[in-house]
């Protein structure tokens, strides 16, 4: 169980290898990686800046992870979320869950990202080719996705 909020990039391969290394109770590992897209709702982006609330962010991510561990039999889990300015193609977030069983790994992984999206204090500022910044509005579909787990 680990949570990291960082400016720098991460290596998904190394992270997921470390997550299950030497643990022969793991039958399934589900991973989600979120990346910066070049197009957002038909606008071309040159970059995105992620602001966050240091302290509360880590606290919320740890709580989300603890909640996942309560709900599913997890052998390991990981949340990494970057902040600062990121360009299209860059990694933003990684969530992973490892369990003896595949359904638990999938459900927990999806829960982690769904809850993160509605609970963790991050805000995205999209920057278009002219350098104009627009704060991304929260999507109802994210609330609905998080609602799946109530």
């Amino acid at each position, binding site marked *: 169980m680990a949570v990291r909020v960082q400016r720098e990039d991460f290596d998904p391969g190394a992270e997921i290898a470390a997550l299950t290394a030497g643990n022969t109770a793991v039958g399934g590992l589900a991973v989600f990686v979120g990346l910066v897209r070049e197009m957002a709702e038909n606008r071309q982006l040159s970059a995105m800046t992620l602001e966050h609330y240091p302290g*509360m962010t880590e606290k919320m991510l740890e709580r989300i992870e603890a909640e996942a561990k309560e709900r599913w039999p997890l052998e390991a889990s990981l949340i990494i979320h970057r902040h600062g300015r990121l360009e299209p193609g860059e990694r933003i977030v990684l969530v992973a869950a490892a369990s003896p069983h595949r359904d638990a790994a999938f459900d927990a992984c999806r829960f982690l990202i769904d809850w993160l999206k*509605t609970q963790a*204090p991050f*805000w995205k500022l999209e920057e278009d080719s002219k350098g104009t910044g627009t*704060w991304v*509005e*929260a*999507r109802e579909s994210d609330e609905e996705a998080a609602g799946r787990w109530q």
Partner: protein
Amino acid sequence: MRLLYFAWLKQKTGVTEEEVELPGEVTKVSELLDWLAGRGEGYAEALANRKTIRVAVNQEYARADDPVKDGDEVALFPPVTGG
């Protein structure tokens, strides 16, 4: 009380962080927002639509009726959009 502003709330108020002394009649979140809105044009604009504002008291999500007091860390921000 320590106040923190994030995303467009920071831009509209022009403030990242400030220390304020609460008037005695401000005892809950909704009263805090009302009081802040009266502190100037930037604040009034930032706080115009309460539906788009989330509040955390001591790093916990709080509702309109939740209590606030001097010494608290209170953060104001829009609905989150990470991930």
